[in-house]
């Protein structure tokens, strides 16, 4: 068995903590800077100062503080999206898997169609048509994640449905809600946890991509994606403006993935057998 992924878990803990306590931790105001202090390099580079550990951007704002506040957006968007997407996914997956027939047919065709439409494109159309807002971003991302939950839950339910203990529960006279909530749902929880950790990474990536393209959560709140975009044309003079927030995204997603992989090994008995 794989060891506990300590470093990824530590990074995740830091990510969540900074997201929640951003105002307490950040050394400077993320939205205000002095033009006199613009494009300062990180502290360890020549010309850098310990006042701005990760340097400043083209408007003289502290990179560290901006990265810390950026965690907030990612965290909130990811959490809300996941709750909504998982809810829809679980409900439709349970229904499709348990009832089968035309319910299953319709739901799974919707899933197929959804998976066939590139998320970012859909997001762009929605943003252009309906305007840019937190609600719209969350809605778009939830639409992007629910099919995978639905599909996996459905697969799991189909498998659990054939287990003898479900038949025996019916023999004992268990009602459909009882079977669904006592016998089926608990069997799906592990998959859900694993899938959620892996999907968080995808949600964070999607959110940052939307921000990068200028279709994300509207300013002034700093988002990692739009910060990378800010530094795009200044790579030659101030590489850190793009690099730092991008690194933050990668570390967060990477830690999520490593943690998710470890959870999968631990919780999914079928994969565990394969060692």
């Amino acid at each position, binding site marked *: 068995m794989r060891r506990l992924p300590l470093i990824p878990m530590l990074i995740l803990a830091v990510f969540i903590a900074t997201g929640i306590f951003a105002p307490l931790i950040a050394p400077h105001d993320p939205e205000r800077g002095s033009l006199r202090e613009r494009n300062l390099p990180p502290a360890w580079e020549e010309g850098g100062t310990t006042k701005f550990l990760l340097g400043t951007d083209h408007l003289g704002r502290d990179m560290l503080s901006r990265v810390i506040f950026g965690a907030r957006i990612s965290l909130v968007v990811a959490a809300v999206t996941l709750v909504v997407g998982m809810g829809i996914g679980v409900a439709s997956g349970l229904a499709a898997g348990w009832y089968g027939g035309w319910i299953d047919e319709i739901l799974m065709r919707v899933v197929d169609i959804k998976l066939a439409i590139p998320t970012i494109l859909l997001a762009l159309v929605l943003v252009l048509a309906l305007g840019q807002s937190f609600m719209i971003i969350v809605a778009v991302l939830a639409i992007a994640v629910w099919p995978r939950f639905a599909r996996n839950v459905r697969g799991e339910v189909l498998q659990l449905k054939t287990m003898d203990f479900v038949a025996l529960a019916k023999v004992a006279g268990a009602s459909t809600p009882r079977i669904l909530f006592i016998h089926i749902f608990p069997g799906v929880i592990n998959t859900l946890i694993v899938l959620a950790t892996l999907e968080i990474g995808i949600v964070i*990536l999607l959110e940052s991509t939307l921000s990068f393209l200028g279709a994300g959560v509207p300013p002034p709140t700093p988002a990692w994606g739009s910060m990378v975009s800010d530094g795009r044309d200044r790579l030659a003079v101030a590489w850190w403006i793009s690099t730092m927030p991008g690194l933050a995204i990668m570390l967060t997603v990477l830690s999520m*993935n490593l943690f998710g992989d470890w959870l999968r090994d631990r919780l999914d008995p079928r994969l565990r057998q394969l060692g």
Partner: protein
Amino acid sequence: MQRYLVRRILLALVTLLAVSLIIFVMSRAAGDPRHVYLDDYSTQEDWDRLTETLGLDKPYYYQYGIFLGSALKGDFGQSIKEGRPSMEVIIERLPATIQLGTAAFAFSVIVGVPLGILSAVKRGTFLDMTGKIIALIGQSAPVFWLGLMLVFLFAVRLDWLPPYGRQEISSIVLPAVALGWFYAAANLRLLRSAMLNVLDSEYVKLARAKGVSNNVIIWKHSLRNALIPVLTFAGITLGSLVTGSLVVETVFAWPGLGQLAIQALAGNDYPLLQAVVIVFTLMYVTAALLVDIMYAYIDPRIRYG
């Protein structure tokens, strides 16, 4: 087999229909569609003419019919910014996108497939570790940032490759790598775990008992079976190539459809954007259909199912 293909084609058509419906609904949800083309200086005559072309005095399903009818003819209206038919603009940009997509796909296969196989066969070695790192970066780094980092390293610092544009042949290297990396990572991981499963199977055991050599077991008996889950996933991942091309073309100023979409977004050019979305979906659906056909070729259970 026939049944399988007919099902796939039907699904592709339904997908296109669904996308067109979403676009139509959005175009109406955004407000009076005439505002897109006309402003306060337009004459009442202009307004009336547009009302008629779009069928705005008719019920919604009729309007959708009109929309669908002109879409089938490739008519998505005039691009606001360019002042000419959207389709015309798209056709100019199409080759660049196809070129980039193909290069990225090739990169992902050339890197992902052999590394996936080798990291399964030589589990726990240096090769496996390298594969793992490539996969982890590919799945964790945002494509746009990866692109920028490549530019910073290979264009700004080392000055080996051009940072943007599509002037030289070497221009395609960086965008193709940035775009193909995620897909390569997906191929690698999937193939690795599928190979591990297959190598553990009873039929591989029987093949070994026949005296089949290790190489033949890997390349003949296992690979074909291991490709089945990879292809299942390929249909879905192809979508990420499309999505990725939006970002990569923006980062590298690659004059393709993706860049066009972003420009349309920035310029509130809805007619152009909807045309790009339809063309992208069409490309994706065609590619997915090709994958499905390949899938049937590899798995006889589908061919004769």
